[in-house]
């Protein structure tokens, strides 16, 4: 997928989120830029470990995360940081008990960008036009996942609930690789990621 597609997706996503931010925040925020949640995540093709801040829209059916990932240089990255923008949709929430709830289905996409000598958005000049049809700085991922949450009853904590999440994800290059053959299936192209999400006290409560 060339860079232009990602630019369009990014611009459309940001416009959508900006609109959601203005019109669908359910709580009376004294400062609507205060994040609703924060995540710490392991793997996910956005770094070895990553931290995010995020916003929730439409009674927490839509989430946006701004993610900073760290990957040690030994894994091939001269610049060990990378940035990811993530959109999650959470259509279902179930209460299991007074303190436990589950979001059995989450899905969405994210756009990840790396920097470094060996990465580029536009083909360097030594190549004829269109020599390689993809670029290697930006990757587009899709995911499907689940979350298990617990209300935090200790009022001294800054978050009202904490969720453990797991997601299965893949990206545009893996999907392309799997399309023209029978050898590669979902099991080959899917990766797994996991982490914890902390919902701040200012955010919409996941269950009543």
């Amino acid at each position, binding site marked *: 997928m060339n860079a232009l597609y990602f630019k369009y997706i990014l611009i459309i996503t940001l416009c959508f989120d900006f609109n959601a931010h203005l019109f669908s925040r359910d709580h009376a925020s004294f400062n609507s830029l205060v994040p609703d949640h924060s995540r710490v995540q392991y793997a996910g093709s956005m770094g070895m470990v990553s931290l995010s801040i995020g916003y929730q829209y439409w009674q927490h059916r839509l989430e946006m995360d701004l993610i900073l990932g760290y990957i040690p240089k030994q894994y091939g*990255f001269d610049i060990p940081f990378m940035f990811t923008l993530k959109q999650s949709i959470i259509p279902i929430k179930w209460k299991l008990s007074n303190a436990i709830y589950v979001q059995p289905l989450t899905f969405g996409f994210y756009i990840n960008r790396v920097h470094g000598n060996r990465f580029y958005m536009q083909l360097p000049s*030594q190549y004829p036009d269109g020599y390689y049809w993809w670029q290697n700085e930006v990757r587009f991922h899709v995911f499907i996942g689940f979350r298990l949450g617990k209300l935090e009853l200790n009022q001294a904590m800054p978050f009202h609930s904490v969720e453990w999440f*797991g997601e299965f994800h893949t990206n545009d290059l893996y999907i392309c690789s799997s399309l023209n053959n029978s*050898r590669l299936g979902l099991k080959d*192209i899917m990766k797994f990621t996991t982490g914890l999400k902390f919902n701040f006290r200012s955010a919409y409560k996941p269950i009543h």
Partner: protein
Amino acid sequence: MKRLSIVTPIFLLGWLTACDFEYHVNEVHKSMLPANLNGNNLLRLQQQKASDTLTLAFIGDTQGFYDDTRDMVGHLNTQPDLDLIIHLGDITNFGIQEEYLWMNDILSKLKAPLLVIAGNHDLLANGELIYDYMYGPTSFTFSWGKNRFIMVNTNSIEYGFDGSVPDMEWLTDQLADTLAQRIILCMHIGPYDEDFDPAMRDTFLSVINQFPQLAIVANAHRHYFQDFSSLHPNTCFLQNACANTREYLKITLTGQHCTYERVVF
């Protein structure tokens, strides 16, 4: 319904053990990669005694053609007399770790020893770091019996045509410094290819033409077969097709006399 919501994550938990973690698509995650595959296969080769007749198979440009490569491996395994199989480069499309692993999963089923040369696609992004760990140096040379094999990196386009690749000083030294009766020279991008560094083409051809022991020259990259032998008398100078064309080259070298067969599978 509620019970399902408990069971589902647990079930997925079970499945997750089959899925890997990935730090980034372009990661070089050495704990997930086999190491020094060319070196290991060379050791295997050198435990066999080389006879006067050398039987080689050339494959190349298996990038993304997983089904065809799987069939090709099956067919190669039916050939009883292969001494060595040489992959002339482009085992991946994007130079990413997962592709290297997918392709290795298929190629590792070959019975005969396999040596893999890096193609231009294999060197993209972090590909050279992966290749270097998984296979070894991009240019290397070894002797087996009275045969001298020279594998030279000719992917100049990936180095911005800066003159460092192909390393002509190294190549000339390897060609000159051998008591071998037969030289087999392998590369990914051949000198007649438009992607070969145009500033180095004439030098390359004049250097290799100086050595009468040069019995076989092989390249790939273009995805179709071509025979350049008429330009180089007494040498089999061949361009290999890709896995998708469902053919590979089988070469027999007896004394200084070389014959080849385009094997269809």
